[in-house]
């Protein structure tokens, strides 16, 4: 009886190692990657102004100069902060709404059947089209960006949570009921914990969407944030500025993904997620 047990534990440890933080490749691969980056930058610099007009693709030196300028006068941090704030707040509100709605509808068959066509219609709607409405409701300030990010996140988290609740093993629920569990206890101690891995999957995929919502909101109507900055640079025909902002947004997205990986790793260690 001990043998299969040790096997199971070993398997678990392997899985844990694989699911860990992304490990950079060997030193050789790092060097190759840096070299590729340098080659691409040189190519960009070389092509620009010779084969393709500087107006369209700018060049690395101009982009770098622009970035340094924005960092020096501190304006870049103001914009980054606005975008990060809208992303995070949108993510938080959207997640809470999505989880609550998902669990509520998941455990009430009548309500979920009642609302089904309406939710389907809302979900099919491109959420970005709601942006003008949010501007009307919440004004030009950060609130309308938070709302847009939150709506994008809400539907993703809701759908995952709802699916998770529906997937809860009926035998586990029956078992708890036979052990005299009340309906509230079944929800709190069986349905919610069992749905957690689905909720976290939903949260994970919705992080980039929170950023999309915030940036799009800023592009539509705003006076700060990275979305505003990219929009503004474009309207000034400032291709160096556009590229500079794109680089910052890409770095921000990478940083957010990295954060998600760390949180997920922690969750697995605490066994909040897992079967």
């Amino acid at each position, binding site marked *: *009886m001990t043998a*299969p*047990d040790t096997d*199971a*534990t070993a398997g*678990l440890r392997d899985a844990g190692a694989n699911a860990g933080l992304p490990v950079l490749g060997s030193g050789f691969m790092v060097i190759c990657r840096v070299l590729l980056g340098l080659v691409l930058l040189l190519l960009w610099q070389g092509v620009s102004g010779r084969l393709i007009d500087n107006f369209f693709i700018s060049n690395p030196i101009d982009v770098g100069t622009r970035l340094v300028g924005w960092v020096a006068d501190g304006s870049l941090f103001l914009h980054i902060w606005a975008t990060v704030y809208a992303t995070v707040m949108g993510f938080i509100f959207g997640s809470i709404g999505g989880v609550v709605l998902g669990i509520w509808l998941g455990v009430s068959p009548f309500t979920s059947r009642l609302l089904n066509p309406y939710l389907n219609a809302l979900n099919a709607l491109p959420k970005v089209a709601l942006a003008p409405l949010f501007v009307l409701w919440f004004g030009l300030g950060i609130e309308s960006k938070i709302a847009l990010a939150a709506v994008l996140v809400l539907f993703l988290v809701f759908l995952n949570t709802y699916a998770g609740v529906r997937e809860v*093993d009926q*035998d*586990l629920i*029956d*078992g*708890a*009921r*036979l*052990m*005299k*569990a*009340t309906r509230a*206890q079944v929800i709190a*101690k*069986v349905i919610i*914990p*069992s749905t*957690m891995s689905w909720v976290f999957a939903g949260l994970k995929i919705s992080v980039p969407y929170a950023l999309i919502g915030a940036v799009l909101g800023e592009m539509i109507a705003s006076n700060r944030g990275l979305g505003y900055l990219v929009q503004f640079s474009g309207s000034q025909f400032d291709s160096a500025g556009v590229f500079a902002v794109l680089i910052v947004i890409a770095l921000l997205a990478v940083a957010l993904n990295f954060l998600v990986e760390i949180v997920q790793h922690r969750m697995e260690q605490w*066994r909040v997620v*897992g*079967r």
Partner: protein
Amino acid sequence: MIDLRHVSKTFRKQDEIVDAVREISLTIAQKEIVAIIGPSGCGKSTLLNMIAGLYMPTSGAVVYKGARVSDVNIHVGYMTQKDNLLPWRTVRDNIAFPLELAGVAKGERVSRADQVIAHVGLDGFAHRYPHELSGGMRKRACLARMLLYGAETALLDEPFAALDAQLKLAMHDLLLKLADEASQTVVLVTHDLMEAVTLADRVLVCTRRPATLALEQCIDLKRPRDVLNVRFTNEFKELYDTLWERLRVEYHEDRV
């Protein structure tokens, strides 16, 4: 104690109507161990689900201790081939789960859980998660949980079907010991005739679907039973042959 009165159950799947159980009447006494045996998919599990109050009979009534079962029957413990341990809880938290539901304080929960953990031979595994245990250990944990929350009646639905022969014997021994100590009534559904005769006071043979009772056989082997050696006695062999004579008919008809 458990009284099934002309119980029938039909399921409706879209247009198709499936008769799972037809007109079964049966009385089970307190502390009795009854094994229900029959071909796979014959409706034995439906019968248990009705005793547990998870399904309501289409006609007839299930009466438990004089009261008609009309909702989940909280006097029974249920154990299936699947373990139904909560995967995100440790063995100890799983076993103490019914106490937690009843609002028992944490300290008492832990000490009572640790007692039964030792009793079923799971010492040292209290902090493990179900997926870290072998199949036999998970069965032990299920038995411990049922023991701890003091279910009067244990409903067992092919609980040991996935275990190998050696482990099965150990679990049979443990099951008989625990049921005797707790004065439990046991209703065991199985398709393993050896298991049925080894454990039960009475074996009921079910027909193919819809399940009706084909034969009722008292097993008057003495208790406590030696689960390892009882099968080599002549009485056991006679009982086994009688039951198999009737049971094989169901399997033969199956093949046609």
